[in-house]
């Protein structure tokens, strides 16, 4: 029990970049677009946030820069896939190659420079409550922001008209088009939101979690975020559960190693991936519910034939 509290605290931190990136991708996919370039957008977010923060001394500007960089990358993807109707899967992968290269190029002069981390919140007596205090009231702001974004997305998708339209576009772009919704414009916005959130996920790494810039510092988290959207069966709150599960199992295996367990570390490191598969299998058996949540036109090129 004594190590339970820090366990939760570490897990929340580890899950945060995944939550940001995954919730953004979820909105993108709900509109019927599959953007596999999350890793590239995260990296651009990370490097932009770091560069701007260190140059201006303002974290706020850094976060804005991350959002901006993520959106620009996403719009580039949108231009290719929505306007030029190119293949989404291939463009997403190309976007990752591009993002890795560009972020390394931009980041050249920022390697090895320190930056003050985002301060953890100190809510006075709230943070001092045993167990609840450290878990609920002593993280940095972005940990809470990530959870808030998930709630906001859930509310937006299922309780607003705009959310309904977005889902309709993802479900059947032709039907949505027939009713008169601007399919392409809506998808552009969804893709841009995905980019903004991926940018924030990257910024969380370079500003808060490990405040530094090193090349390719996301180390594959964009891919995990993509998997989490599928894992969540496109439902926002399940993104949280997925990220916590993945982060939790990761920390658990690190704990076991620290405690001296005699199992090869490579096998221990497999656990988060295997756990995700196992849980997915358990929750996927109800086929109809998944089909209801999966956007039917995902990955398909839309062009209103005239």
């Amino acid at each position, binding site marked *: 029990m004594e190590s339970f509290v820090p366990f939760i605290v570490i897990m929340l931190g580890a899950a945060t970049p995944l939550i940001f990136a995954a919730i953004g991708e979820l909105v993108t996919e709900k509109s019927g677009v599959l953007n596999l370039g999350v890793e590239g957008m995260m990296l651009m977010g990370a490097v932009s946030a770091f560069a701007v923060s260190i140059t201006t001394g303002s974290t706020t500007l850094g976060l804005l820069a991350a959002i901006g960089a993520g959106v620009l990358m996403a719009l*580039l993807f949108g*231009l*290719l896939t929505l306007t*030029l*109707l*190119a*293949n*989404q*899967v*291939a*463009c997403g*992968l*190309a976007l990752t*190659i*591009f*993002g*890795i*290269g*560009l*972020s*390394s*190029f931009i980041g*050249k002069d920022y390697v090895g420079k320190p930056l003050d981390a985002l301060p953890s919140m100190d809510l006075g007596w709230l943070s001092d409550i045993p167990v609840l205090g450290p878990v609920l009231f002593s993280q940095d702001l972005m940990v809470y922001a990530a959870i808030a974004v998930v709630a906001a997305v859930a509310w937006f998708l299922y309780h607003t008209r705009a959310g309904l339209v977005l889902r309709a576009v993802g479900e059947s*772009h*032709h*039907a949505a*088009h*027939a009713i*008169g919704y601007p399919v392409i414009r809506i998808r552009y916005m969804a893709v841009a939101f995905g980019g903004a959130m991926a940018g924030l996920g990257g910024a969380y790494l370079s500003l808060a979690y490990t405040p530094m810039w090193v*090349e390719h510092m996301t180390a*594959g988290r964009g*891919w995990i975020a*993509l*998997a989490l959207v*599928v*894992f969540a069966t496109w439902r926002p709150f399940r993104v949280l559960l997925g990220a916590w599960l993945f982060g939790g199992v990761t920390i658990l295996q690190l704990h076991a190693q620290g405690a001296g367990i005699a199992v*090869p570390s*490579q*096998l221990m*490191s*497999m656990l988060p*991936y*295997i756990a*995700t*598969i196992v849980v*997915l*299998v358990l929750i*996927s*058996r109800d*086929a109809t519910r*998944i089909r209801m949540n999966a956007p039917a*036109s995902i*990955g*398909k*090129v*839309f*062009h*209103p*034939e*005239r």
Partner: protein
Amino acid sequence: MRPSLELRSHTPRSILYLTPVIAALLTAFSGGVLFAALGYPPLEALYAFFIQPLTSLNGLAEIGVKATPLVLIGIGLSIGFRGNVWNIGAEGQLTLGAICGGAVALAFYDVEGVWLLPLMVIAGTLGGMAWGAIPALLKTRFNASEILVSLMLTYVATLFLSYLVHGPLMDPEGFNFPQSRLFHDSALLPTLIPFTRLHLGAAIALFIVVAGWFVMARTLIGFQVKVIGLTPAAGGYAGFSQKKVVWMAFLTSGGLAGMAGLFEVAGPIGQLSPSVSPGYGFTAIIVAFLGRLHPVGILLAGLLMALSYLGGEVVQIELGLPLAITGVFQGMLLFFLLGADLFTRYRLRWNRSPAAGTAAGAARPAEAREEAA
């Protein structure tokens, strides 16, 4: 006047061949601008990137070596992609192929024989198939998304290889460094051109290109895959199930990825080591689409991707261009190629009134067409 796009009923050959050329020219131009802006001589850089690797026999052979896994995996993946089966984990299947084929070589490290290499190829292919069978099984039996399962299994496979070369398959005379014994001669693929690394695997990849074309264009299986990809329901009426297509896609792409992995360890690497592939399984996804899911297109796309990697090395060596810029340039190349594909499927038309176009489009949604993925 504003431009709009019109779906082509058929693509003229000229357009099919012209678009990549235009894309290449655009890339060359914007690449030149990029290099010049960063203070590198643009023409020299472009020459080093695109031409220099092609100027020696060894360079050409190396492109073949690099393209072999990309083409093999790309062909396998294209079959699944046509049937809307999303195998994102070819990298993992490649790794398992390397492990299984490599394990055979290591089991017979002191026995030589002509039977060894075929046995390794079989083991590698089966290993890849087995790893591909997991997402197929979970998809067909439990409805679990093949995207997630295949992707996650890639990490598992890489860690498993790491475990093996740090443990059971470690070279007993290698001072406990994480790598296996070197394979002996009869466990290595023969080279096709003397004094280069171009190996038998490249010839087999070419054969697979032809076989892939034949299967997709001339057999019932190919037809079924395409039908399922376009309209899953139609397959049911025609008497074949999506499950069958999922299985077939994963066994084929897994098997070919496994074979590619075996070719890497039995070809240019010559042993098992912690990293057998610099992401071929992922790059092959781009190759498959760049090649428009057509075997010959995949062959050309694979060669082009290989050239772009080699070119990236040459500009680093010759001009000191950092790898980061190579990545940016490679991304641009892909964007242009993928973007230009537009004109193979659509025609540009200039409308007089934007409103008329929209209204017409909205009025006839039933005729709207889409292209799967």
